[in-house]
Structures are given as structure tokens and as C-alpha cells.
């Protein structure tokens, strides 16, 4: 009888402890689940998003604009760059990557994962405005792909183009350039164009109309006719 009572009480105490631990375990599993929901290892593809239609949604939340696929792809045992390149090559046909386009991967890592960006070029001339970005988790599982590649035709490099000096001379008084300003040739992959356009990226100082504000800038000028297509400004410590 004594043993029986002891046994019952022991079982009861074990059950009580098990219940208590179970609650802890349940809470832990909820926490694990919330982590999983942030990093599900799922594959989300944001297909051919132009800059203007970049997703406003938080990560892993699909919007109407996005083509979403859920498949798990991972490349254990490879370096992140190798993994991303393997993934890119596996999609070469689907994305219609042209033979006249070369690419170069650049990886950045953080404690949260690795991101590999593929920049494209034609005959060594950088294509500005298109890239593929592949985000991966710690086990090289593909988490998200941003594909801004467009299968554009070859740029016509035989067309009559202005020289950097001619282009610089056509700039308005808004831009001041040094005589030895660097002017690199690029190919501008405009969102809606079939062919990229040869352009020069030129260092300049933009001067406001009242002459009060002067901002170092890079201007993108079309080599065919000298039209300024875009301007980016250097990030200033103080706004003049």
C-alpha cells in the first residue's frame, strides 16, 4: 500500500513536471515557429521587377505584382558565389540570358545570410540598369531572387557616337566639368528599350541657377546626341 501510494504520488509529480515542461516546450516551439516564418527557406521570385515597380511589401509577403514560387533550393557544400552561379546557370534558359552578355558576381555577407549580385556587361562594357540579385541563407538555401535582367539585343557600337569631349561641350551651364574629367562608356539598359544605348558616365559639379548651390554629381549622357539621361549626386555631409 505504501509503495502504491508512493508510486501514485511519484507518477503525479512526474506528470505535473511534464506538464510544466510541456508548457515551456510549447512556448519554445511557438518561438521556433515565429523564427521559421521569418526564414522559411522558401523560394520567392520577384520576376523582372523594374526599379519603379520594386515590391513595397515586407520580405516574404507577396504582392499582386510578384510572381511567387514556393520551392526549396539549396546548395550545401558550395561557396555562396558558386551556389548562386549554379542557380543562375540553371535558370539561364528560363531567363533568356543572352550569349553576348557576360556576368560578374559580387558577394556580400552578414550574420543573416549572403547576397550575390550579378552585374552584366557586353564585351567588357558594363550594362547599367540590369542585374540579378540572389539572397541565400547560411546553408546556401535560396531565399529570394530579384531579377532585373532583360534579354536585350546587342548594343550597336558601330553607330556614330560623340566623343566624351563633344558630349561634355554640349552640356549646359548647369554642369561644370574638369578638363580631365573621367568619362567612362557604359551601356544604358533602359527599361523599355530593345537595345542598350551607349552612354558616358561623367563626373561633374552641378551649379544651381542662382549659383549658390554646388553639388558633385555623376551624369549619364547619351553618346549618340549628348542628352542627359540621369544624374546621381554625391552624398554630402552638409547641404550647402
Amino acid at each position, binding site marked *: 500500500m505504501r509503495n502504491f501510494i508512493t508510486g501514485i504520488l511519484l507518477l503525479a509529480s512526474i506528470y505535473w513536471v511534464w506538464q510544466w515542461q510541456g508548457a515551456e516546450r510549447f512556448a519554445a516551439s511557438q518561438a521556433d515557429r515565429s523564427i521559421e516564418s521569418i526564414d522559411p527557406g522558401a523560394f520567392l521570385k520577384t520576376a523582372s521587377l523594374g526599379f519603379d515597380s520594386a515590391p513595397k511589401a515586407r520580405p516574404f509577403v507577396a504582392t499582386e505584382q510578384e510572381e511567387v514560387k514556393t520551392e526549396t533550393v539549396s546548395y550545401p557544400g558550395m561557396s555562396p558565389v558558386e551556389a548562386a552561379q549554379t542557380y543562375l546557370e540553371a535558370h539561364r534558359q528560363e531567363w533568356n540570358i543572352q550569349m553576348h552578355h557576360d556576368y560578374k558576381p559580387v558577394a556580400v555577407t*552578414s550574420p543573416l545570410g549572403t547576397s550575390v549580385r550579378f552585374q552584366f556587361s557586353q564585351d567588357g562594357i558594363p550594362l547599367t540598369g540590369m542585374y540579378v540579385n540572389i539572397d541565400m541563407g547560411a546553408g546556401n538555401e535560396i531565399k529570394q531572387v530579384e531579377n532585373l535582367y532583360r534579354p536585350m539585343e546587342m548594343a550597336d557600337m558601330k553607330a556614330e557616337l560623340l566623343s566624351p569631349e563633344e558630349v561634355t561641350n554640349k552640356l549646359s551651364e548647369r554642369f561644370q566639368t574638369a578638363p580631365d574629367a573621367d568619362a567612362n562608356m557604359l551601356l544604358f539598359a533602359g527599361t523599355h528599350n530593345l537595345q542598350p544605348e551607349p552612354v558616358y558616365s561623367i563626373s561633374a559639379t552641378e551649379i544651381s541657377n542662382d549659383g549658390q548651390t554646388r553639388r558633385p554629381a555623376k551624369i549619364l549622357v547619351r553618346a549618340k546626341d549628348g542628352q542627359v539621361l540621369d544624374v546621381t549626386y554625391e552624398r554630402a555631409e552638409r547641404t550647402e
Partner: protein
Amino acid sequence: MQQHETYIQRFLLVAITAIAGLSTVSCSKGELQGCAGPEISSSLLEVRKGYLPSGPKGYLVVPNPIDATGLASATATTAETLSSAKMFSLSELTSASLLENAFLKIRIETMNDAVSTLAKPNASGEFSYRVEDVHNWEVMAYQSITSLRRYVKAMGFGLDESRPLYVTVRTKQAGIAADTVNAYYTHNYFDSTAPRTIKLFGKGTYAPGQDRNVYWHEFGHYLNESISKQVGMDYAGDSGAIYTEGSALHECLADYIAESTGNVSYIGKWIAPNFEGYSAGDPLRSAADTRGQKLTYSQVSLADGTGAKPERYAVAEWCSRVLWDIRQALVAESKDIGAVRSDLLMLSALSLLKKDTSISGYRDAVAQADQQLFCGGHQAVINQAFENRGFVKSANLTNPLGITATIYGVTSTGSTTSSISPGQDFTFRIKITNSNSQIARNVRIKLESTDSRVRGTTYMQGLGDLAANRTLDIGSTSGLSFEYSVYGVVDSATPRGTKVSYTLRLMTENAADKLLRGEIQL
């Protein structure tokens, strides 16, 4: 029976204690392995101190004469400054005679400076220059950027070093006046082969080139772009926007990394006297409240249509106080490694940002990074830090924002025309009305087009929080200037007589977007 009860009670107590004890051990173990974040080793803490382990020596006053001496009156040549110079190693040099390696290249005026004009070691192999000598600034540039780069990499961040970073410590540039004091960072988004640059301008008493914090802040911009995977966290700002929340975040995080790495809650004591309204010894910006005044979001974010408008550096200062509050909490939690955990959190959050991000976006990214690094152990701290400084979720607007716009051509001299020709820039006079009794959060105006002949150049502007029952008038003499409007250009190859379409998108975080479609008759 009583004996039996005692026996049973003792047995149960032992059993429960043993099982609970096991449970406690296993919980602690799990916590240490899973929720303490990446390992923070003693060697990482050493790296954080900013000393490089080997290489030629250089003499520096760090971070600058005012902070090094504690004297607001200190200059480059005062006796206290001279006596506070210390010797630093300069690791990772490609050669012992030139301050550069494959990634970082230090110059004085331009990227093309002749090598013969640059700092050289003396017969003892030391880079020994006085603070007022520009060669000392070169040494400061190399040492400070290399030490911060080394620390960030030691935390587990692999940076984009596919292109070199050129630093010019006393820059000369066509169109920029010789007496200009400023500092610029360029990421060179257009050209994937062009180097990144940090350009410091100024050579007076408080030259920026003499201050480690200036290099750390500017290198912070590079870190922001690299760790955020070059998504263009403030691409609108890069494209000419006067203000966006992304631009404020860029400055905030550049301040944060300089302040946190230096373990001081301010930045810019050295360079501040160059600017109006600052006395020697005043910081340029502070991550802690000053004069007992708590800085809240509404003090820096509101546009009220009568002159008040957000400014990127003011919002950045507010933001840095939020981040500093979080850092303080993490340091209180763990004195030895709290600051490193905070740096890990703030920088990791960058990797989650989207293009043209917002303060809400960054707050969510910090919370998400905390979830992934620390199992969400600091969610309350993060939320409280933002909320305590007035950044709270806004209720949805009852009425949509109102918008009217008139398009103008812009001539090469900046005057406006009512007609627009092919190849001409154009802009808008825009009126935005908030007829609600609540503020409209993070109001932005964006120019879009599906027509390839129309390109947005300064394609977006941020206008801050629009006060209740107020109207913003952009492009009027009584309101905000055209600088606060969006700009575009029509391709010069477009024939005259053609109509091209565009859309103005009015965005706010507490109401649906509003679209205003229009056509340009060339």
C-alpha cells in the same frame, strides 16, 4: 503515516528539484547556443578598440585635437594637441611606402595625384607628420578606415570590395570653391567599374581631414550601401531628392557607427565650428538628449505648410538617439559585449532593407534582425525606443490626401515654361492637402511613367509628416520651392506633337496611394 508523508514530500521535492534543475540547465544551454547571437570573442573586442596589429607606424591625434585633449580651444598646433599624439600601426599596406592596398587608396586632391606628392615614411619607416600637415590627414584616413573596416568584417560582414575606395583628404574639384568645408561619399551606382570615393573638402583651422569621426561617418555611408546589398536604400536621395526618410537613415546610421565605435554619444566636435551656429566644443549632432530636452519625432518630422519641414540631418539626429537608447539597453544587459551586440543588430538590419526605405522599414528590419540574431529578445526594447521618442503607428486617414498638379518645362537657366519640348526637363507645381484631423505619415510624391520616352530624374521627394488640416504648396513663392518637386525629362528623339503620359503617385503610410495621371503635349 506522518513519517510516510515526510518521506514522500522529501522524495517529491528531490525529484522535482532534479527534473526542474535539468530543465533549467537545458534551457540555459539552449539560450546560450541559440539566442545570444554570433559569438563575440575577446579578439573581436580587441579589434573593436581600433588598433591595427602590425605594419609601419604613424603618429596621430585621435579622434581629433578637441576630443583628444578635452579642450574646446584646442587646435592642430596647441601644445596639448602635440603631446596627445600617439603611435599607431598601419596594417594591410600593399607596400610600406604608400598608404594604400587593393581596396583602400588614400590621396590628397584627386584620384590621379602623383605618388611623389603623397605621404612617405621617414628613414625609420614611420609616417611622422604634425596634425596641420596634410600628410598626417592621409595617415588618419588610412588608419581610421582600415580599423573600422577590420571591426565590421570581424563581426561577420563580408563587404563589397569589388571596386577600390579612393579617399581624397583635401579635395580639389572643378566648380567647388577652395574654402568649402564638406565631405561627400559616392557609391557610383551607374558604373560597376568605377571606384567608390570619399572626398573631404576644407583646409582651415578645423579641417575635416584631421578628424577620425569624419572618416568613420563617410565610411559608414559605404557600409550602409554595401550591407544593404546596394538596393538603393535612398536612391531617391542619390537622384536629387532634398529629403527622404531614407536620406535621414543614411546619415543616422553613418553617425551611429562612428559614435558607437568611438564609444561617445556625439559626432563632429572638431568640424562643427566651421558651420554657422556652432561654437568650438559643440558637437555637430548628438545621440543623447542635451540640456534635458527630450527630442521627439514630431519636433523634426512635421511639414505644416507654413515653413516647418523635415530636414535630413535633424531627422538623422533624432534617429541616432533612438538607436543610442537601444544601444544603452543592450549595454545595460551586458556591459562587456552589449555595444558589439548593438552594432551587430543595427548593421544586420541594413541587410533587410528595400529600395527607398523608410523609418518604419528600418524599425521593422531591426526587429526582424533581433528575431533572427537574438530570438527576439529585445523586441520590447526596440519598440519602446521608437515609441518613447514619438514614433508610433498612425491611425488610417479618414479622408484621402488631396492633390493637384500643374506641369512646367524647365529651361537651362532654371526658369519655367508652360510648353515642353523634346529633350527638355519638366517639373510640377503640386498642392497636397491633408483634410484630416490626424497627420499623414511619411508623405512622398513620385513621378512614374510606362512610356520609355519619359524618365524620372529626381523621381521622388519625401515631404515628411503632413500636419492635420494643412496644405503643402510646392513650386509657389509662398510655399516650398521647386527644389521640393519631382523632375523628369522627355527623350530628345520624341517628335514634336507627340503626347507622352506620366503618373504622379502620392504616397503616405496611413492611406492608400493616390494616382494623378497626365499627358505632356510636346
